[in-house]
């Protein structure tokens, strides 16, 4: 009951923001998103980044590879499920073969032996499955703690978290420990990327939003999105020599 009230309050807040001036059509809730972004950024600076840096400094790269592989293996099972849901049976079978080999030969997933056997890792989730089935992205959203998302991917992320095998782990303190380790590893892997984002952008919020939307679009189409028309208006008067030689 109280959660429904919270949702209604959130929706009201979103609607209230939506009425103001000129704005990117993909991001009608920009002012609210920006505040959540600032909040996330603070959390990142104060907690996530320092922890990730320390982790990267203290834990040898070899061990971090094992940790990344371990969580990657857990993820592969539902990556397979999503491939099946998208009708990509060959990819789904390959994902489950990865789980089978990496869990056994790869010692509970800490070694990614399947990649060397030719079973490449894929990137799938419920958000992409919804997209594959024709769901539009809906408005762009910045979720507290989780960051860039949109209505479709937010729902997808909910399903991802709900079905995540980590949720089955008992006792709870072990489960929370594993979540924390997984996020630390993930953040550590993104340290370089976030530094580059910092350096490359004039407005970090806009740069990250546009990169997120482009990236998700590419993922939904498995790296082959139909060409967007406005990308073709180049060459207005660049210094190219286009004469046939």
């Amino acid at each position, binding site marked *: 009951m109280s959660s429904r009230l919270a949702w209604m309050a959130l929706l009201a807040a979103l609607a209230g923001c939506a009425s103001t001036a000129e704005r*990117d059509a993909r991001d009608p809730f920009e002012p609210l998103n920006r505040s959540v972004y600032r909040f996330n950024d603070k959390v990142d600076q104060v907690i996530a980044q320092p922890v990730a*840096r320390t982790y*990267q*400094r203290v834990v040898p*790269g070899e061990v971090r*590879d094992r940790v*990344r*592989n371990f969580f*990657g293996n857990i993820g592969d099972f539902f990556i397979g499920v999503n491939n099946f849901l998208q009708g990509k049976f060959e990819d789904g079978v390959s994902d489950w073969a990865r789980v089978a080999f990496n869990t056994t030969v790869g010692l509970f997933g800490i070694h*990614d032996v399947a*990649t060397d056997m030719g079973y*490449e*890792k*894929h*990137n799938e989730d419920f958000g992409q499955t919804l997209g594959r089935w024709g769901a539009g992205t809906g408005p762009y959203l910045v979720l507290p703690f989780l960051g860039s998302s949109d209505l479709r991917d937010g729902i997808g992320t909910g399903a991802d978290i709900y079905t995540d095998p980590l949720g089955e782990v008992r006792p709870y303190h072990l489960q929370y420990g594993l979540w924390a380790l997984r996020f630390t590893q993930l953040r550590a*892997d993104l*340290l*370089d*990327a976030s*530094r*580059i984002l910092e*350096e*490359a*952008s*004039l*407005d970090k919020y*806009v*740069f990250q939003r*546009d*990169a997120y939307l*482009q*990236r998700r*679009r*590419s*993922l939904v189409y498995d*790296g082959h*999105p139909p060409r*967007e028309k*406005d*990308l073709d*208006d*180049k*060459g*207005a*008067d*660049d*210094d*190219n*020599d*286009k*004469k046939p*030689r």
Partner: protein
Amino acid sequence: MTTTRSLASAALLAVLASLPAVRAQDVPPDQLVKTVTLEVVELIAKDKEIQSGNRAKLVQLIDAKVLPHFNFSAMTALALGQSWNRATPEQKKRLTEEFRTLLVRTYASALAAYSEQKFDFRPLRAKPTDTDVTVQVRVLQAGAQPVPIDYSMEKTSSGWKVYDVMVGGVSLVANYRTEFNNVVRESGIDGLIKNLSTKNRSLEAPAAPAAKK
């Protein structure tokens, strides 16, 4: 004695005569990407100073090896979209310079983060007559999905030139478009030039050594 000398010069002439066959404009785009990538990675691997965080030297290396293969005015035009046509030649020149500085810096950051990943150079899927192609490279890393890097390249009189780079499906040029247009809408093209130059200066100033693992 004279015969050996004339033989030697004949050999030299033959070598020189064969050189024009490998002029820059004749190198196929996929070959160009492969050669330059491997060369740069090797140079970095050999250079102790760059590895210990000498950013100026890395930028120098990029300037010398990578930049000649990019068409920055085309990139800037693409990133600006409509606004580009309204800019004066002087503004275009300044915009291109500032954007180029920013991109080189970003590229240097990305290269500094490179740590012995392997490359998978994909075969080029294009007809020999094509003048606009996409060269695909994948960066392979243990336990993670390969990261695709696509170079959009166009044939010019001085060889193939890159006019966009897509990393993991994100076009660099397209990603700057909203940002640039927001600034142009608020403070005009001169505002954008100023904004970019302030950004570039701020990145130069602190010169904080990159936090390496």
